[in-house]
């Protein structure tokens, strides 16, 4: 389950730029499960997640030359590709479900949306194997991470939905991160 990451990142970058099967194999064997975990939490259905993860790999493969080591680590970069691809997918699906551009508030109440939510929830059940360290976060902090990270809400939207000031959303997000870092430390 747990990825190995046993090559230093610089070596992996060089390897990836060769674009050969050995590079692919290493990338896949070490990172696919972690990236898949991110994708699954966002698209929440295994069938779609499989489609998305393929795109993710194609993107990483295609754009590795654009990766800038000064702006962060390769793994971080790959995670953000996985997350963005999955969020885009989720959005495009939401657009399909959205009947003729109804405002968001209507959709929440629409029958179709309820059905969709049910489907997603039962799909989520596919992934009960999730080890969810996030559950250990304070609930009002956890929801911020989930909305922002896995559901792609902006902080402004979160502030409106939860009816708290934007500044509070930001400082609570930070608090959530600090607790998460602590939990991860204990986990190690």
């Amino acid at each position: 389950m747990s990825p190995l990451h046993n090559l230093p990142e610089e070596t992996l970058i060089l390897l990836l730029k060769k674009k050969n099967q050995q590079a692919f194999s290493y990338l896949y064997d070490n990172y696919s499960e972690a990236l898949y975990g991110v994708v699954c939490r966002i698209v929440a259905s295994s069938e779609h997640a499989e489609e998305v993860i393929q795109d993710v790999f194609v993107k990483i493969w295609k754009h590795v030359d654009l990766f800038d080591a000064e702006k962060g680590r390769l793994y971080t970069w790959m995670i953000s590709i996985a997350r963005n691809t999955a969020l885009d997918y989720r959005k495009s699906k939401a657009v399909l479900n959205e009947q003729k551009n109804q405002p968001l508030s209507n959709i929440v109440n629409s029958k179709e949306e309820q059905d969709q939510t049910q489907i997603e929830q039962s799909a989520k059940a596919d992934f009960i194997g999730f080890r969810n360290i996030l559950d250990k976060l304070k609930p009002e902090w956890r929801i911020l991470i989930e909305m922002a990270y896995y559901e792609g809400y902006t902080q402004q939207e979160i502030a409106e939905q939860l009816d708290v000031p934007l500044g509070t959303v930001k400082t609570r997000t930070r608090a959530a991160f600090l607790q998460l870092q602590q939990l991860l430390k204990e986990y190690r």
Partner: protein
Amino acid sequence: MDIKAYISSGIIESYVLGLASEEEVSILNCIRKNNVEVEQAIAEAEKALEELADIQAMAMPVSLKEDIWNKLNAENLVAFGDPSEGKETESSTLDHNIERNSGEEPEEVIVPRKSYNWAIAASVLLVLSVGANVLLYQQNNETKDKLTKTSSSFDQQQASLATLQDKWRLVQNPAIKTIPLKGVENKPDLHALLFWDQLSKAVYLNLEQMPVAPKGKQYQLWAMVDGKPVNAGVFPLDAKADGTSKMLDIPKAQAFAITLEDEGGKDVPTLSELCVMGGI
């Protein structure tokens, strides 16, 4: 900037969650280059998301690995052939060439001519590149000159602005008494302004219209206290001609006067060198 407050505002978390605005990101990128604390906080937050991904990793259907590899191949995103294979082809061609060349008469040699073409192409490129470099170098120098000129004229303007601001502050201050010092009989064109703070007793002098003191000489200010001249300091030689200088504090006076004295000033004024004076 208060870095602690910046970090605790939650901006770094917004950034790693991909929620920061473009403007926020460009500010952050600028700060992280110059601040280890911020750089480290970013790295830690990113690391947390990496570890979270590790913990939440999920098993994938086995067939996907092959599917994705096929997809990459189908989209022509894969380097051709195995590197070891490539080497083999290369060396076998080489062998072949050697065999051929070991024949009685070497046939027409293609390789040198090819490299000759390359040499021409390379020279042309080199000439172009040198030309472009010279051009760019000249442009760069011109830009540098312009920049130097602009910044020096900017400095001058800044300095004169500062001078005016100093004076303005004095004039604005209600505790300041402004005393004009007028040229004496034989020097009617001379003029200076004295600012006297009635609270702190500080004295400021501005040589509005006075020639630069000749070499070895220096203007000296005197306060007339109960009919006796009291030294109020020499006007600094390094002060700017239009600048205002702080002189010695004078608690009480009925008049002020300036004489031109030898550098460093005197204990008693040389009355023949009296330039300007003014009463309270």
